[in-house]
């Protein structure tokens, strides 16, 4: 493979290419996301974490590819399945682990857990445990940047299920109307919990067509291919920065059950996730594409990430539990109002 990995022209049209360094960086992000999710699952299974947990395993290419198009000052909102987005946007992973452990060193002070990661410094405004609930915030925040004369964009991740929420359509129309620099990324993993997205919207790409008809620029991309995602995202983010809103439907696959305790065998083949991963793992796909040449570099990344994850997880767990008084803090900024907790 040549130094410049052959980029498939993103639907964005620009014949962008991704060079090997960028490809390695995408690889690192995916491995890091995977590592974080696997560690969390392990910790849960060992009873060292509580709270809910929705693994993004298998969907790493979407988070990594999209966030590769962003600057730190760009903003991201996410949903219940947001660890990958948080990692890709650059939240320190120790802060993520600590939040899930319920430690005061957690990014949200340890009171929210898995579905409530917020890290303003990284431009990660926050997850939201209400399906599609973060979309209007993303729109308003992105628009705020534009109003301030900045060129930042907002990216809002939702799932296919989130496309059924009315507020999604409200935000699409408002973003178009106000020309907000907003990119909505719909991770179509084929399922909203047990509800097949094909039943509701039609085959993959159908959501893209609906959005296209509103006049918002829309692309459908294969979310197993991190380079395709990165290129499409680059084009759409550029569109948002300079023109107006954009929409990406990213076809991915949910490897794990909906959440930790989900009996997914009730609605799909028991080993559907594992079977898919064996043939479609986006991490392995990039490995293959980068070829033998990069084998050593990739192995080094794997090792470094493994160490990073282990260290962060251990440090997070060692931090003190959030003290009870914290339950009553930070409800209001107005000092005199906090007394009423």
């Amino acid at each position, binding site marked *: 493979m040549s130094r410049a990995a052959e980029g498939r022209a993103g639907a964005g049209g620009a014949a962008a290419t991704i060079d090997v360094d960028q490809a390695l960086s995408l690889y690192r992000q995916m491995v890091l996301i995977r590592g974080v999710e696997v560690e969390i699952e392990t910790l849960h299974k060992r009873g060292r974490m*509580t709270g*809910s947990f929705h693994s993004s395993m298998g969907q790493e290419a979407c988070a990594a590819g999209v966030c590769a198009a962003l600057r730190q000052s760009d903003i991201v909102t996410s949903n219940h399945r947001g660890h990958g987005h948080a990692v890709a946007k650059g939240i320190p992973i120790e802060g993520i682990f600590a939040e899930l452990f319920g430690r005061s060193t957690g990014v949200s002070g340890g*009171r*929210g857990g898995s579905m409530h990661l917020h890290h303003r410094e990284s431009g990660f405004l926050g997850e939201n*445990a209400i399906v599609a609930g973060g979309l209007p915030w993303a729109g308003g925040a992105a628009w705020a940047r534009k109003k301030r004369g900045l060129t930042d964009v907002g990216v809002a991740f939702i799932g296919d299920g989130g496309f*059924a929420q009315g507020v999604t359509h409200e935000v699409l129309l408002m973003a178009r109307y106000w020309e907000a620099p907003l990119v909505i990324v719909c991770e179509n993993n084929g399922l909203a919990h047990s*509800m097949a997205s094909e039943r509701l919207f039609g085959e993959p790409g159908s959501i893209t067509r609906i959005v296209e008809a509103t006049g918002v620029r829309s692309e459908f991309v294969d979310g197993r291919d991190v380079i395709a995602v990165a290129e499409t995202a680059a084009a759409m983010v550029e569109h948002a920065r300079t023109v107006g809103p954009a929409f990406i439907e990213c076809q991915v696959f949910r490897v794990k059950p909906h959440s930790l305790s989900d009996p997914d065998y009730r609605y799909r083949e028991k080993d559907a996730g594992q079977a898919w991963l064996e043939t479609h793992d986006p991490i392995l796909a990039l490995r293959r594409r980068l070829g033998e040449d990069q084998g050593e570099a990739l192995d080094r990344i794997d090792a470094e990430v493994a160490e990073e994850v282990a260290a962060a997880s251990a440090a997070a767990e060692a931090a003190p539990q959030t003290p009870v008084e914290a339950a*009553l803090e930070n409800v209001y900024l107005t000092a005199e109002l906090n007394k*009423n907790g």
Partner: protein
Amino acid sequence: MAELKYAEAVRAALAAEMQADEDVLIMGEEVGALGGVFTTTKDLIEQFGPERVIDTPISESGFVGWSIGLAAEGFRPVVEIMFSDFVLLALDQIINLGAKVRFMSNGQFNVPLVIRMPGGGGTNHGPQHSQSLESIFAQVPGLIVAMPATAADAYWMLRDSIRCDDPVIFIESKGLYFREKGEVDESEGPRGFGARVARPGTDITVVSAARMLHRCIEAADALAAAGGPSCEVIDLRYIWPLDTDTIAASLAKTNKLAVIHEPVEFSGWGGEVAAWAAASQFEQLDGPIARLGARRVPIPFQPHLEDEVVPSVARIEATLSDLHGY
């Protein structure tokens, strides 16, 4: 007859009414193949088919409104909102239409609809999955607000609610689904809207409901064991209609009143009970009315923090002790 867990009792009630009346439908997210995230509709789709056990998209406003249409046509939909927090998305349909359409149409329509939802905390789901919203519904004309505390009530109150010709907000305590269990006697009949004395006592009348009822009983038992006051704990069962007769009867004996609930204390339904007593039972009161609800902050996900926010057994005990000492 059978000892059932609270979640099983809900499921059994659904199955019984589905069996008894073809017009009963189940709708909601994940109620079908999955059987509900809390197993309350497990296997019902196999038994009654997808025409009657209906998976919905994640469109709370849309499908709740849709169910109002079904109900106004004579079906008896039982709609599940996966967590009560999500009902905020559907409040326009519930309050502006479902609750009012009988009034607005001068009786041309009625809405035999049950909206079931797991409320409250106890499962570490965090601030957007643990709220107690019954105080909102209690004030809405046209609605009934049911809150079973026991497996038997989960069963009978749900059956009663499905047979009711008016819309019922049926709030299950998610913290009780797998922790609470009890005998459910299928040969019993409807139980009506009345409250129930869950634990007899003589010194203090403690009014509560749902998950907090069990904490009140625990606190009352602990106080009794420690030689403290004898508390009569009342399980309201329905927040509206409010059975003030049962409370008054108890108060005539104890002359002291405490109200304990899981929703935020400020402007919660406990204020209603206290205000009712302060207005109409003034002569009976030998002391201030004690009230304890959640602090006015969101619900953190960790158990030790949640217990700092919603009434813990320890804080309930302290509240009742203080009142006894008055």
